[in-house]
């Protein structure tokens, strides 16, 4: 009793931490490799940033949004504060503006790694999970946005994700509309808070301060949420000011590229969404699939931060912010959205099976489970042992045979 309790308490992990067991751990790794192979095939070269960075560099520019989700610890060596990455995108952006500042643009980079966050969210209790993603740095065209969306869509389709849809957002539109209407920052904050919850009643209430016509305009933007064709039609029917019309142009351009290149891709649009897009400067996108909670992946356009202060002195971009777009796939959600891994073709090799036969089977893609000693005699015992170890085949007379369980 005591021993059991002892073991049970040893098993307890901090909130949001998990052991991934067989076969899921191997399956996750194979899925990551498939995605990375797809990204690599599209010319995205892999980088591997470290787990820890100095806090002030990690949380600069695109990293600022993750400040309250970042674990900090003191570096006993340099006596400086370090942050444990809560997101890999800012690290890749830093690499692009520092060590790879001389590399030709557009620069295509990919990454896969684990991140750690201070708090889980409502939909994701995990505090550690895998991110697999790409960044396309130094290109400002809608074609670049579309390239990433299409590449991710094909990677997800190849993994067996069905009923996928891509939600396009434009976090720059609401600020532009506010500028057109001459609203101040404080009012913009109120408007965004209401729009984030799609709180139409909240916007209507603000009508007493910003004018009922303006409130109606924001509610019409809110109501334009839906299938992308409907959204564009609804937005075209609105009288938008100059800044808003300018802000809208990239979205329309991306949509027309996507519709031409992938007419079957299900697109929705939501031009008032701001949450999660704190550092973005243009079209953003989120991958959803029906029936799976949470997002499979998300990304969008942003500016890499100026790298001044890193002290390496080698950057030509120390003052410049480069246009960039990127995508991150969240492995925890993604693994729930794809069919379970194939666990068949696991074969038991009874004691005395020649080594070369095992080699041949492994070369042919089998998973071999060898006996460590002779079973107590006849094949039946071997079969029982094979079943006990989760094999579906057994080697009999030099040939694989499906395992038949005794009734």
């Amino acid at each position: 009793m005591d021993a059991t309790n002892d073991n049970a308490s040893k098993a307890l992990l901090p909130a949001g931490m998990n052991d991934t067991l067989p076969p899921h751990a191997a399956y996750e790794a194979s899925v990551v490799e498939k995605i990375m192979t797809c990204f690599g095939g599209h010319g995205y070269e892999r980088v591997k940033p470290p787990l820890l960075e100095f806090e002030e560099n990690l949380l600069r520019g695109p990293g600022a949004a993750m400040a309250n989700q970042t674990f900090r610890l003191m570096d006993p060596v340099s006596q400086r504060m370090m942050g444990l990455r809560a997101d890999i995108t800012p690290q890749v952006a830093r690499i692009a503006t520092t060590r790879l500042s001389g590399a030709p643009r557009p620069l295509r980079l990919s990454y896969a790694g684990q991140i750690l966050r201070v708090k889980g969210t409502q939909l994701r209790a995990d505090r550690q999970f895998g991110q697999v993603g790409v960044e396309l740095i130094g290109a400002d065209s809608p074609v670049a946005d579309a390239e990433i969306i299409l590449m991710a869509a094909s990677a997800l389709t190849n993994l067996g994700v069905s009923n996928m849809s891509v939600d396009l957002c434009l976090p720059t539109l609401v600020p532009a509309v506010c500028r057109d209407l001459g609203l101040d920052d404080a009012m913009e904050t109120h408007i965004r808070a209401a729009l984030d919850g799609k709180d139409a009643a909240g916007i209507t209430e603000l009508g007493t301060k910003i004018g009922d016509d303006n409130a109606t305009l924001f509610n019409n933007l809110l109501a334009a949420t839906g299938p992308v064709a409907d959204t564009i039609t609804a937005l075209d029917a609105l009288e938008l000011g100059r800044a808003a019309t300018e802000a809208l142009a990239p979205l329309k351009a991306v949509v027309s590229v996507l519709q031409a290149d992938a007419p079957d891709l299900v697109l929705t649009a939501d031009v008032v969404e701001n949450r999660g897009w704190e550092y973005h400067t243009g079209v953003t996108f989120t991958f959803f699939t029906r029936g799976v909670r949470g997002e499979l992946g998300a990304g969008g356009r942003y500016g890499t931060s100026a790298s001044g202060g890193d002290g390496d002195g080698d950057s030509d971009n120390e003052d410049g912010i480069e246009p960039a777009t990127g995508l991150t796939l969240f492995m925890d959600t993604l693994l729930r959205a794809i069919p379970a891994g194939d666990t068949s073709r696991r074969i038991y090799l009874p004691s005395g099976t020649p080594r070369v036969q095992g080699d041949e089977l492994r070369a042919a893609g089998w998973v071999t489970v060898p006996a460590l000693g002779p079973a107590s005699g006849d094949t039946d015992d071997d079969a029982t042992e094979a079943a006990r170890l989760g094999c579906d085949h057994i080697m009999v007379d030099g040939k694989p045979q499906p395992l038949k369980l005794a009734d």
Partner: protein
Amino acid sequence: MNIPANEKLVLALPKGRILKEVMPLVHHVGIHPEPAFDDDSSRQLRFSTNIENVDIIRVRSFDVATFVAFGAAHLGVAGNDVLMEFDFPEIYAPLDLDIGHCRISVAEPTELVEGDDPATWSSVRVATKYPAITAKHFAARGVQAECIKLNGAMELAPTLGLCRRIVDLVSSGATLTANNLVEIEVITEVTSRLAVNRAAWKTRPAEINDWIARFRDAVETKSKAA
């Protein structure tokens, strides 16, 4: 692990007071639940409707928000008191249903009102069903609120010395008066909202937009008739 795609649309309705007010709207949009829904002796929790694709669940008002937030229900009816308390990022509230009118207020015993200067407070102890709203409300003016979470009968707390102030839903104010309490401040007005799960809206936009439009029509028709 693959969660099966939940193709049926689930509408979560709150038990109790709001249910009576919301049913005319639900009928107006064309949803008529099976007879067991109106049978008080029925133990059923999930009900089919005349629309094959739509089911109704009946849960406590706070749970409506939770069901919708996690996508277990796609649509729901919840007061903005509940939505504010949880502040779930996964819930959108695109429509004010103009029912269930009341307010969240701070109340305290009549004798406390005289000779109390709120500007001098650094902390207050408050009994409430809404610890998050209460803490946020007082924090905005630089006061820490030590919240005692109760699920009902808040009005008892001051009389029995649990704490001196309460934050609670007020509709007529009669309960407060009966317990010798005075409403000193309104935190927010409350109405019921149509709540929509974020992922459901993104993945089934045409369907969800259609239901929002139907509910909007129901609300407008009702307000014209009034």
